[in-house]
């Protein structure tokens, strides 16, 4: 298997799907020359300006054009350069893309993918750092995913493009250089199937995206201290694979949910409430969660680093969750 990075995996998925299906097209600010994160490099040359379009800076307009195109026969992929700005076009996503099929009695298709880099880091401050996935998990009609390995990001983008529902596809903006094995040839990664990244017996860490990377390194260090963590990378948040989560908790009896989004209103609360409903009796200790501080992300590097969970704070949270053991 080839070792490629996350960016290349995305680029390959786009290229392969566009090759296979002439109705697939992509648009967003500056995507024609390759996009600000380089994800669409080379596609213009291969597929031409009709299918690879730089847009005017008009997020509601071009997202809405994606909705209309999806309703009439294309499979558009819309890029919103920083997920913070989905706030500009959320009417189109929430009230049109997500609801059209239902409002119209099932008589329309909505194969739309919204790709959007999210996550914090690098001093880009409060308007370029948010993780708003919880907003979209609240909206029936959408699917929401957050793949973090090159393997997953490629397979899941293909899955998203082929899906006939609107998919919020959150890429982590610090992940583009992450490397990993990706097989030759076509494959997809389904929604609603979590990946158990590490097996363990003391506690289940439920997480996704970059925090899944941090959770694994935290778990490795904890293993040296004799603490055995099971790390679950959800990969897709809507649908969310509670079967895998509950099976793990049945084994460990404890759970810590970790996300990079701010704690209050993040999906951690939702996951915990659902776990309680599905298996309160499985729990040997209160389910715990860890998220970003409830603070608009500051520019200063030192302050910024205090806000977002990291290896150390995950280790701390695990120990706290095990403190009565």
């Amino acid at each position, binding site marked *: 298997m080839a070792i490629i990075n996350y960016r290349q995996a995305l680029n390959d998925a786009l290229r392969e799907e566009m090759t296979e299906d*002439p*109705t697939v*097209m992509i648009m967003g600010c500056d995507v024609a020359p390759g996009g600000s994160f380089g994800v669409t490099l080379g596609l213009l040359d291969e597929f031409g300006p*009709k*299918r690879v*379009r730089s*847009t*005017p800076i*008009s997020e*509601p*307009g*071009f*997202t*809405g*054009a*994606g*909705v*209309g*195109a*999806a*309703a*009439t*026969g*294309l499979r*558009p992929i819309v890029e919103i350069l920083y997920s913070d700005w989905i706030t500009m076009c959320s*009417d*189109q996503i929430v*009230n*049109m893309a997500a609801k*059209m*099929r*239902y*409002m*119209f*009695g*099932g*008589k*329309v*298709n*909505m194969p739309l993918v919204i790709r959007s880099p999210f996550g914090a880091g690098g001093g880009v401050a409060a308007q370029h750092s948010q993780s708003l996935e919880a907003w979209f998990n609240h909206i*029936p*009609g959408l*699917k929401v995913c957050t793949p973090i390995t090159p393997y997953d990001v490629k397979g899941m983008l293909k899955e998203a493009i082929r*899906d*006939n*529902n609107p998919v919020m596809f959150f890429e982590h903006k610090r992940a583009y250089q992450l490397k990993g094995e990706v097989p030759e040839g076509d494959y997809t990664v389904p929604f*609603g199937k979590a990946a158990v990244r590490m097996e363990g017996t003391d506690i289940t860490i439920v997480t996704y995206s970059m925090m899944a990377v941090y959770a694994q390194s935290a778990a490795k260090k904890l293993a040296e201290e004799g603490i055995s963590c099971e790390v679950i990378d959800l990969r897709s948040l*809507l*649908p969310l694979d509670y079967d895998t989560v509950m099976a793990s908790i049945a084994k460990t009896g404890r759970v810590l949910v970790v996300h990079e989004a701010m704690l209050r209103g993040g999906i951690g609360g939702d996951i915990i409430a659902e776990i309680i409903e599905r298996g309160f009796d499985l729990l040997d200790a209160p389910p715990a969660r860890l998220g970003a501080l409830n603070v608009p992300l500051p520019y200063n590097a030192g302050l910024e680093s205090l806000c977002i969970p990291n290896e150390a704070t995950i280790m701390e949270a695990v120990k706290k969750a095990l403190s009565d053991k």
Partner: protein
Amino acid sequence: MKKIAESVKQMLPTLTPLEAPEGMTKEEMTEIFYKMSLIREFDSSVKDLWMAGEIYGLAHSYVGAEAIGVGACMNLEKTDFISSTHRGHGHTIAKGGDVKAMMAELYGKYEGSNKGKGGSMHIADIGIGMLGATGIVGSGMPTAVGAALTSDVLDNGSVAVCFHGDGGTNQGVWHESMNLAAAWNLPCIFLTENNHLAIKTKLNESSKETELYKRAIGYGIEGIAIDGFNVFEVYKTMKYAVEKARNGGGPTLVEARFVRILGHFVADDQKYRDPQEEIDAWTADPVRRIKEYLYTRTDMFTQEEVDQIAADARAKVDEAIEYARHECTEPPADSLYTDIYANNEVIL
């Protein structure tokens, strides 16, 4: 012919005499008048039925705008698309929608065009290119741009018409839609139904420049203002714009001017308005205008024939009401979770 009130003429300097396009056949004229009558009868009944509590939710009438929807859609194929507004009944009928399925929808029935899930504000018929009403002003505009984008990418020759109100032109997505369609030279026609009102707010309160077609200049496309009470003028202008779009000439902004006759929504008593305005506006009634034209100004129709067409439309609507009332069923409880996702996938 009845005379149009002076006050309306002053409000609408674009008012023009009806004149059928050269070579228009009797069948075409019949279709125009029939569809306009159908809209008129449908939405007149909707108002009554809403007041009687048979229909609920929010419903907005297309009465008074019939010439615009019908004049525009007469130029469209089934494979062309339209996007709509909160005032979608007229657009759907003009595009060829089935009034039985529509009425059933307003009754919330499972046999309704939307299985009872949408109601008036979301009336839709994708199969005939009607991309759905939307209750959020502006939200449907980029839908039309997207349909035109599909045409451009697949090169299938279809065009899209974006219906919207004067109030809607102040939404940001209107600007973005216009600019996008112009920049990409898409086959999308923007048709402003300028009734000079947005609920209770007058056009000149929300826009300094009330000649809305002038906004086209900013996008480098053509803008045309026409008499929205005149179905032939709408027809001719839209024919030009549609052909232009189909031939790669890009978007046009057409501002169809008229006066809102009825209230904003079906139960609006319009107390905020000078009652004389409504009375005067009726003198320009587009349905009466075309009706009188057909038997007085063409030699194709007798008055009886024209009356019969109107009566057919009425009968069709009555049939639809009967259907909705007596032949349709309530949606089953288990339909609640269908249609959220494709293939009725359910995510709880």
